């Protein structure tokens, strides 16, 4: 168990280090002179030199990379070039929108997909199954931002139940905010729920063909009892994998959905920063998102081991 953990943690740290390297090279080395890039055509030489000094760009790339990484480890991401505030503050403010949105969508997707997949699998070939899987096919094919536009058209314009865009801020009250995040969360969750329900269905079907289910049935358990007592735990393994992957899809999907609904989240911030050429903010957010994806994958790996003792042996 300990060697398994050590192995996983080492590979986590290596992945994180290498990905910061990739981000650094892409953003600071590839464009040539980041200062010229950030100032655009308008910058004077004096201003460029001042900015170079301010950003610590007057030293070589290796030093800059180590400064950057050690700064991040200490919670210092630098100061935004356009907003003139510490990047950490900017991110904290925006994450208060993006993270709840992601969790809300993930919950919605799970709550819809797992029962749907389970029902489909247990009633294979029935009308319910066919229509659920038909919806799933459609759900996979619908781009979430288009679905978002349709939701706005229907719920905001026609029914006037939700506001079309914007976010009041958490000071306005929990439920008001939850309401503002509902349409975005639904549009984020739809394609993910479609994929997840298909995985759940085929996973349950696979498990139902296993020997131990037959043994359980022979022992006198009903189909339902066998499934719930022995099958479900095994069927959850592939579902868990997909759920972990979906977190990263949701984070990335959030970037677009936030711009559909004009939510002041991390995604909007990334876009604004790209337009304003605020490379420090872009670099920090990309790093943060990659960090969270890698960490989630790590947690999913650990959960695997918790669900399936065989994986704990360390020779997986």
């Amino acid at each position, binding site marked *: 168990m300990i060697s398994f953990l050590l192995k996983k943690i080492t590979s986590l740290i290596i*992945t994180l280090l290498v990905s910061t390297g990739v981000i650094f090279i892409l953003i600071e080395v590839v464009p040539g002179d980041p200062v010229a890039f950030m100032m655009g055509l308008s910058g004077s030489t004096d201003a460029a030199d001042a900015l170079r000094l301010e950003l610590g760009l007057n030293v070589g790339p290796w030093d800059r990379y180590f400064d950057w990484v050690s700064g991040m480890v200490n919670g210092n991401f630098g100061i935004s070039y356009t907003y003139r505030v510490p990047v950490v503050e900017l991110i904290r403010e925006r994450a208060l929108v993006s993270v709840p949105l992601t969790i809300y969508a993930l919950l919605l997707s799970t709550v819809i997909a797992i029962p749907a997949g389970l029902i489909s699998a247990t009633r294979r070939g029935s009308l319910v199954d066919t229509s659920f899987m038909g919806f799933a096919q459609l759900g996979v094919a619908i781009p979430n931002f*288009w679905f978002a536009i349709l939701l706005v058209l229907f719920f905001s314009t026609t029914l006037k139940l939700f506001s079309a865009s914007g976010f009041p801020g958490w000071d306005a009250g929990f439920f008001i905010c939850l309401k503002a995040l509902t349409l975005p969360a639904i549009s984020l969750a739809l394609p993910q729920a479609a994929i997840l329900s298909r995985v759940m269905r*085929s996973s349950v079907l696979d498990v139902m063909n296993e020997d131990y289910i037959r043994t359980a049935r022979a022992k006198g358990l009903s189909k339902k009892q066998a499934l719930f007592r022995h099958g479900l735990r095994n069927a959850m393994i592939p579902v868990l994998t997909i759920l972990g992957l979906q977190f990263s899809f949701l984070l990335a999907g959030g970037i677009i959905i936030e711009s559909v609904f004009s939510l002041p989240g991390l995604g909007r911030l990334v876009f604004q920063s*790209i337009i304003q050429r605020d490379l420090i903010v872009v670099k920090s957010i990309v790093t943060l998102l990659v960090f969270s994806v890698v960490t989630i994958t790590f947690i999913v790996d650990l959960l695997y081991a918790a669900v399936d003792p065989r994986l704990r042996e360390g020779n997986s």
Partner: protein
Amino acid sequence: MKHFSISFIVGGGLSVLFLMGALLSFFWTPYDVELLNIKGKFASPGLEHLMGTDHFGRDILSMVMVGTRNAIAVSLIAVGIGATIGVPLGLWAAATCMNGSRLIDELLMRGNDLIFAFPSLLLAILITAVFGPSIINAIIAIGIFNIPVFARISRGAALSIWPKEYISAARVAGKGVSRISYEHILPNILNLLIVQATIQFSIAIIAEASLSYVGLGSQPPNPSLGRMLNEAQTMIFFAPWLAYFPGGVIVALVLGFNLMGDGIRDLLDPKLRQKSITGKVSNDAS
């Protein structure tokens, strides 16, 4: 005997329909896509303009045709890039894994994991942030995130072929590792790769639409389905058709390719086919 499933017929039909429409747009569109006609702006769908006109009076049907062509072209090239780089990498990883040196395999697969750590859209945004938004950069971004998908699937499939007896026979006959990979492994995993390619193609269509929706794909005046939806958003309250048609086309295109992929898989996978003939297992592998 091969019998075509309903999903193959519906999916294939939809795909062929859109491919024809896209090809047709090279020679003919109902109107010129760059032709502005302010007097005829916001015409609702009717006989003159089947899908209506936008805020510049441009014909939506014509723009949708050209936009579909662009989306298909971007996705084909991107998936092509992913397969051409990913498949040899996966075969190489499997070959080294089965022939002693696991180091290269390990390195290649960790590299794969690294790309997976970047959500595809984030990667695309990063690339366009550095190199500027353009259709070429969108292709590169979508292509890059296809590489690990193909590498992983061909590695996995190749690993299951390597222990087969005919591979041992080929080695005894003196064939080298790369020749075996190319002449014996690749043809045996081709079915799987074709199915994966159709899935990746439909993912790429959505990715392209998403990128151009946020302005990182093909640039104006070149029509793109994603950007049409973006422009439509401010006008949906009085001209909802601007959002209906481009979005509907994306859905139908993706649905078509997904269904066709399912159909091809059922046709090509002998295990599934046999099962469906004996009637024991129907097509529930989705």
